């Protein structure tokens, strides 16, 4: 209840700001224009009127009613689109089953982007996001949203944008608690939706003599997906996971997009027929030299090849966009830069954050380039945007200039500034009856969500279902013991400065664990 009230207040505040600053007429002059739909124009002029682009070119006459904004020496871009975020949603506390989204969960009804979060995103050149909850198997139906002032409804560009599906097993002893269970669960849900649609249609045509089919909003929500009207975004990062998602999508005959896709470098040839959202949250090498050397070549090689994925996809003619995915706000531009360092051209990087995502979500007639008649989302930066030292200086959303964080220094280092005390590498010891087990985890918190990796005595991989709420946290790993069946270990604990402790639930019982932060 308090949450809802807070949201309402926020919306009211945003709406108040909007009224005070209606979209006017601007001529942005003197900068290098990057329309994306065509070649760059040096010393060009961009005219914005009533929220739309009115003119763009080298020889554009400035309308007399326009306010002139001279950006000589700067670069002007269409606002970037980050086509996969969970901005505006906090992860539910682990074990809170009621909070799990369903196919009929509409992101537009739940999204609450705080002003600070919107500011921080815009400072990275992003004016438009696609967002949905990140919890559950069905994450719900995402919304494409401008990061402008005003109510969510006013900023929505497309809702629903897509049905988002993650291969997230539920906690142990709740079906489905394994990856194979998740796939079976999805298969059954789509079969049920087909049956539901057929039964409803039959009943509506001629109800006499038929038992009335039950109402079911969740299955009803899958109808546009079955009709191939609404695409499904499957979150799949590894090559095998992408292949699984592809096989499932073909089996279910749904239109789909893959998101995550960091191992795309290994299978670009198999991605010709599917749009891909590549997460630029690249894996980091362990800070400690000994830890790096202990890792197998396969892990090191994979970590170094992942940032080549965008370049490899570009070379292979795959339709792709770059997204922040599970990454933090401040990771987006550095992540794109790393892709450029690894062979992606700056032009392709720009396309992959503007026109390409607009096309993937079917909004390229109104968004994604600086063209007459399109939505006036405009970003100005002092240097080419994907260069290391570049700073975003002005941002227009729907033709309205929006504020940037006042302390520029702070926004520039957003990545480290919004760090949580749980961020970092932790050495954990689990006191199991057969002896203690050492596991190292590297954790990152954002918006109540915990992501990261683990390695040690029980194999290595990504953590799953991570949440953090104040000092309380929880996450799950898939533990592998030599010669035994792999099982889930669910950690639940509390943080106290540079130490943490709690319990691990495993199939063999609950054990205590403790750990400390590695320097």
């Amino acid at each position, binding site marked *: 209840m308090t949450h809802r009230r807070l949201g309402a207040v926020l919306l009211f505040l945003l709406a108040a700001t909007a009224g005070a600053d209606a979209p006017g007429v601007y001529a942005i002059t003197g900068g290098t224009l990057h329309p994306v739909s065509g070649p760059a124009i040096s010393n060009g002029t961009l005219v914005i009127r009533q929220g739309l682009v009115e003119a763009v070119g080298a020889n554009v006459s400035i309308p007399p009613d326009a306010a002139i904004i001279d950006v000589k020496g700067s670069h002007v871009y269409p606002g970037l689109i980050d086509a996969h975020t969970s901005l505006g949603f906090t992860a539910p506390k682990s074990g809170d089953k009621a909070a799990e989204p369903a196919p009929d969960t509409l992101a537009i009804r739940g999204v609450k982007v705080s002003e600070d979060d919107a500011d921080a995103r815009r400072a990275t050149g992003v004016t438009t996001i696609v967002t949905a909850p990140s919890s559950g198997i069905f994450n719900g139906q995402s919304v494409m949203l401008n990061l402008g002032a005003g109510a969510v409804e006013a900023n929505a560009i497309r809702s629903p944008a897509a049905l988002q599906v993650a291969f997230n097993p539920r906690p142990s002893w709740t079906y*489905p608690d394994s990856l*194979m269970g998740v796939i*079976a669960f999805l298969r059954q849900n789509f079969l049920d939706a087909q049956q539901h649609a057929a039964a409803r249609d039959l009943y509506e045509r001629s109800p006499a003599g038929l038992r009335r089919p039950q109402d079911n909003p969740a299955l009803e929500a899958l109808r546009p997906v079955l009709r191939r009207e609404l695409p499904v975004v499957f979150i799949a990062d590894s090559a*095998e996971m992408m292949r*699984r998602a592809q096989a499932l999508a073909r089996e279910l005959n749904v239109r789909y997009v893959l998101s995550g896709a960091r191992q795309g470098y290994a299978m670009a040839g198999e991605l010709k027929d599917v749009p891909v959202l590549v997460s630029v949250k690249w894996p980091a*090498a362990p800070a400690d030299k000994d830890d790096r050397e202990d890792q197998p070549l396969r892990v090191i090689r994979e970590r170094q090849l992942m940032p080549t994925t965008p370049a490899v996809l570009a070379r292979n003619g795959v339709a792709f966009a770059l997204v922040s995915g599970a990454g933090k706000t401040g990771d987006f531009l550095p992540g794109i830069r790393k892709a450029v360092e690894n062979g992606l051209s700056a032009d392709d990087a720009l396309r992959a954050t503007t026109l390409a995502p607009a096309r993937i979500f079917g909004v390229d007639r109104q968004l994604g380039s600086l063209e007459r008649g399109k939505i006036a989302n405009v970003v100005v930066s002092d240097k080419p945007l994907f260069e290391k030292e570049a700073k975003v200086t002005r941002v227009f959303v729907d033709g309205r200039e929006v504020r940037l964080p006042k302390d520029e220094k702070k926004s520039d280092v957003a990545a480290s500034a919004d760090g949580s005390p749980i961020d970092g590498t932790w050495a954990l010891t689990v006191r199991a009856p057969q002896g203690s087990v050492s596991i190292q985890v590297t954790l990152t918190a954002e918006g109540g969500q915990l992501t990261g990796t683990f390695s040690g005595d029980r194999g290595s991989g990504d953590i799953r279902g991570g949440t953090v709420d104040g000092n309380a946290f929880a996450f799950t790993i898939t533990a592998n013991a030599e010669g035994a069946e792999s099982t889930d270990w669910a950690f639940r604990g509390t943080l106290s400065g540079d130490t943490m402790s709690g319990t691990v*639930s495993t199939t063999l019982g609950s054990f205590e664990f403790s750990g400390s932060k590695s320097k």
Partner: protein
Amino acid sequence: MRNALCTLLLALSALSVAAQERVTLIRNATVLTITNGVIENGSVLIRGSKIAAVGRDLAAPAGARVIDGTGKFVMPGIIDSHSHTGVDGSVNEISLPNTGMVRIADVLTNEDISAYRQLAGGTTTALVLHGSANAIGGQSQIVKWKWGRPVSEWIVAGAPRTIKFALGENPKSANFRPPEGTPRQYPATRMGVEEVIRRSFIDARDYRASWDEYEARRKRGEAAIPPRKDLLMDTMSDILAGNIDVHAHCYRSDEMIMLLRVADEMGFKVRELQHVLEGYKVAQEIAAHGAGAGTFIDWWGYKAEAYDATPYNVALLMRGNVLTSVNSDSDELARHLNHDAAKAMKYGGLTEEEALRLCTINPARQLRLDQRIGSIEPGKDADLAIWNGHPLSSYARVDTTFIEGEIYFDRQQDLAQREANRREKEERLKKEADEAAAKKKDAKKGEKDA
């Protein structure tokens, strides 16, 4: 036009593949055919994916790759009828007493290094099973360890569908405890395990009846809403129809008898009893049902239900006319199933050929793939390994492992690759160290500027 061109290109590429079909001749080796005795100074001719000829004086066709087998032994690829290798995520969908709707085939991964290690032990085929946490587990998958290939190629096309059942301690949650706050799951006793299995088949009959009724109404031209298509009930119906083979994890003889009786009552067959440590007590009953037995030779005592065991189990089962194999249930044991086969000669006096059958043609028959694998015979898949000594000796090692005519493990290549891997790792680590140093320098410079 474009289509025609594509068709032409496809036809051409198909031709060239056929023309380039690789021919390999292994000669002068001791060939352990399994089904046709031992051929000293023998040869095996491989054409494409199949064994073309086996004999004493085979000539090498022009262009054939010739491998000298002097002093070496050729044996069929080992078949492991109980594996959990190559599974992404948990091998147990633990949440329900019957999870027959989930499929191992959906979650195979080709990144499990254990698959490669098994090739190095001469193992080429495995039944990858769901775990044993529930009375009826998920659908299992027969694979070949085609290391380096996508998992779609690991799956043995046309192989029988299989499912895991489990009896005893595990499905009654004696060894799996839910976390605090989660209620204990049914069943909690062996009686309950039996009830889950029986109930599942009764439900499946009801399910079939509802579909039959629907089809009948449609045939009569009446309006009817189709019943829900239920993946779990489809699985159970397919077991009743004989389309899915049951491989059941079990330890105690009383629960084996229970399952065979429930199977007779419900009208399905148990293809293979797995682990089956007390099988020697009821070999007659197992043979009468027609079930096979896949067991460990000398691995027991790790839980209460696994105490009344003997290494003579294999011999006693075989002498009782039960189709018996040794299998692994372990990434480690799967690398040397030949040792377990050899131990059966000490415990129970099996002949060499009987021992070798335990990990070749017998599991092939249990998996109903004996027309394709499990022995060295013309027409069968060219799945075999060249050993540097007799595979029933603990000193023997595998030099080369073939699956369908392709080499998937070669000891010399592996040794050569190690140096290249070492160098690559060194270079990659240096790259990261350099980047870290540059970043540090940048940060220092930034501080100074500020």
